[in-house]
């Protein structure tokens, strides 16, 4: 047990910081072309991701030909710590880089790897992930979008929802039912769909904060033809791919959640210096001081729990921390934003948001907007209730009903 890193790791951190400083996009570039969805590859984001790829700093645990440099786990941790701290995201298509690329690497045929893997890593193409459906949210295995196999091609019909970035994506990594007679987990497959294929219609689904802000979509498939060679993995193997895909997403996700929480705390410290509705400095209130200290403890403990999980992961052991961190981190963020709105009082009701976009950290969004946005994290990617079920059943061994 130790709090510090060894000298070699700190040397790597220093070199990485210098490299980031020299290469990351400028604020002006980012402001000039704001990222508007999670599959929106902007000019600066394409250049930046390509630059990371060429430097072996895109997925540092992977080999050089895949945009990495075979870094040992501790240096990967330092890499993610540093990347989480900067304003620029590693990619503007996180599901493509974080979920779909590793899934193609693990399960895809040589053809699919050749056609899609490198272009994804080099930010030449963007992806959406076709998972949730109107009738299959928390119960993902209940999905009913059908893909019928006819000799050398599938015909896909059905509907997805909450499909992030579908209006910007070039391709969809789509979970479909290929055997309606099998038990629900055993009849699912994964297909790669071209979003420009005939029969696909995308309908935007703006979020509650802003009728003009679209990340989510509904996607309708009406007799979409997909060649059989665009099946990922084996037929009806989709459920294990989904488990594998999401595991990739979870590995280091806590780091960006912890960094975002740190960012919210920094904003709360600023709020403390401002006058509240009664004209007194908000930080003078003992109730506020108690609340902010409590949030600070929780935000810090995210790192400590994450490091504990990482220590197990680095030694090749399974750790249940991802469910704990996902549940805890998203609920703490929600509490942080709520506390801010309550201490702002009526000032929280002004949600004017003309400056920048929600992705640009240099313009903190009004707290009430941030508060509403936090529900995105307690509902998506396994709602808090599902995380509690997972902890109770898989970690604590309580019986399933």
């Amino acid at each position, binding site marked *: *047990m*130790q*709090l*510090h*890193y060894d000298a070699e790791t700190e040397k790597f951190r220093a070199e990485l910081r210098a490299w980031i400083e020299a290469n990351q996009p400028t604020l002006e570039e980012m402001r000039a072309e704001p990222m508007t969805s999670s599959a929106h590859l902007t000019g600066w984001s394409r250049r930046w991701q390509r630059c990371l790829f060429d430097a072996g700093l895109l997925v540092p645990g992977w080999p050089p030909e895949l945009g990495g440099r075979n870094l040992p786990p*501790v240096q990967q*941790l330092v890499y993610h710590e540093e990347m989480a701290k900067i304003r620029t995201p590693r990619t503007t298509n996180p599901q493509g880089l974080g979920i779909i690329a590793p899934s193609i690497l693990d399960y895809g045929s040589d053809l699919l790897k050749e056609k899609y893997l490198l272009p994804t890593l080099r930010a030449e193409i963007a992806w959406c992930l076709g998972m949730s459906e109107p009738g299959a949210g928390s119960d993902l295995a209940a999905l009913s979008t059908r893909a019928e196999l006819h000799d050398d091609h599938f015909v896909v019909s059905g509907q997805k929802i909450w499909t992030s970035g579908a209006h910007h994506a070039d391709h969809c990594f789509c979970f479909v039912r290929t055997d309606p007679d099998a038990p629900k987990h055993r009849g699912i497959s994964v297909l790669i769909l071209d979003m420009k294929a005939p029969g696909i219609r995308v309908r935007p689904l703006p979020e509650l904060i802003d009728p003009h802000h679209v990340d989510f979509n509904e996607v309708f498939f009406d007799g979409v033809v997909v060649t059989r060679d665009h099946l990922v993995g084996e037929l009806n193997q989709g459920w294990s791919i989904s488990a594998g895909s999401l595991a990739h997403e979870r590995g280091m996700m806590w780091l960006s959640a912890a960094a975002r929480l740190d960012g919210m705390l920094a904003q709360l*410290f600023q709020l*403390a210096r401002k006058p509240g509705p009664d004209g007194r400095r908000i*930080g003078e209130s*003992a109730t*506020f*001081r*108690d609340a*902010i*200290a*409590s949030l*600070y*403890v*929780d935000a*810090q*403990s995210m790192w*400590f*729990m994450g*490091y*504990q999980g*990482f*220590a*197990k992961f680095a*030694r090749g052991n399974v750790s249940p*921390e991802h469910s*704990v961190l996902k*549940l*805890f981190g998203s609920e703490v963020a929600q509490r942080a934003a709520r506390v801010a709105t309550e201490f702002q009082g009526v000032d929280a009701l002004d949600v004017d948001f003309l400056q920048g976009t929600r992705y640009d950290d240099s313009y903190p969004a009004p707290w009430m907007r941030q508060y509403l946005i936090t529900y995105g994290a307690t509902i998506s990617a396994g709602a808090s*209730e599902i*995380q*509690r*079920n997972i*902890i*109770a*059943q898989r*970690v*604590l*061994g*309580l*019986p*399933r*009903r």
Partner: protein
Amino acid sequence: MDFEITADQQQLVDSVRAVLERECPTALVRDVVENGSAPEQPWKSARELGWAAIDLPEEHGGLALGFAELGLVVEQHGRFVAPGPFLATVTGFLPLVLEAGSAAQRERFATPAGAGELTGALAIDHGRAAEHAPGEALRARRDGHAWILEGERRYVLDGDVADELAVAARVDAGDGVGLFVVPQGAAKAQRVVALDASRPLAHLRFDGVRVEPDRVLGPPGAGAHALGRALERATVAAALECVGACQRLMELTIDHARNRRQFDQPIGAFQAIQHKCADVYVQVQKARATAYFAMMALAEDDPRRSLATSMAKAAASDCQRLVCKEGIQIHGGMGYTWESDVQLFVKRAKTLEALFGTGGQHRQRIADLLEI
């Protein structure tokens, strides 16, 4: 950065746990609580196996393993609601003597305490402990080369049973902190009817107690630094013992949820119970990770040690609140009885919450340290 317990540390934890499992069953704790017995164990084991000397320098016969190793042993004591002088002597008395004492004083008090031949207590103001202040209720004034203690110290852990008491008092000089060691009997002790009778508390009345120079720790008026550092150790130790007690209460509760059947199924199959258990697990994970961070910060003398200490106590506070509540609730009627062991863990956890500053006091301290 590595939060993983090393192989050596794990071996230590396993051996301490095996010994406490054998020598400190809850029946022994009950005998202390119900009959006021004063068992030799587990202090006898601590003495024989050198647990009291884990974080003691070698010049005093210690093992000099570090505070992380000591902290892990303290956590195990919480797991078994261990009674006896270990906590007060090793994590309260010893740190103050080591921080503030001269070489001769350390030899006189720390060496025998580390060997388990002397027991000690730390007489501080729990209400001001989070801010490292000595409080106003006990004052020391100079009398020639000696000092006179006047006032009281309330809720001193082991205050009427320890051989020697390390005392912090307010002085009208320098930084306002004077540190002393007085023998048992110098102050008038009044035993408190304490929530957790296996953690004896006493009010101590100092009616002009004279302290000769050889029992004055460092120059009075320059003791704040040492008091703060000693309090950090005592506080993190309390947080760790609390985490140990909470971990065990969580395990008992989950076992109960698995085994207790109602409506033809284990109650642990109900989502209402599962979600309570999941929340309890999250709080225990949070408290342990935060306490381990503080433990390492003290072991490495990291500049974040004060902040880390208060975070650990605040996180332990959150943890015990939920674990005690759901521990009793999920146990149902049995959790409400004297017979169930649940009450032993709840009372230990609530005691540790109150000692060395509550969660709320430490949150105010955190806000101070963050300059809110």
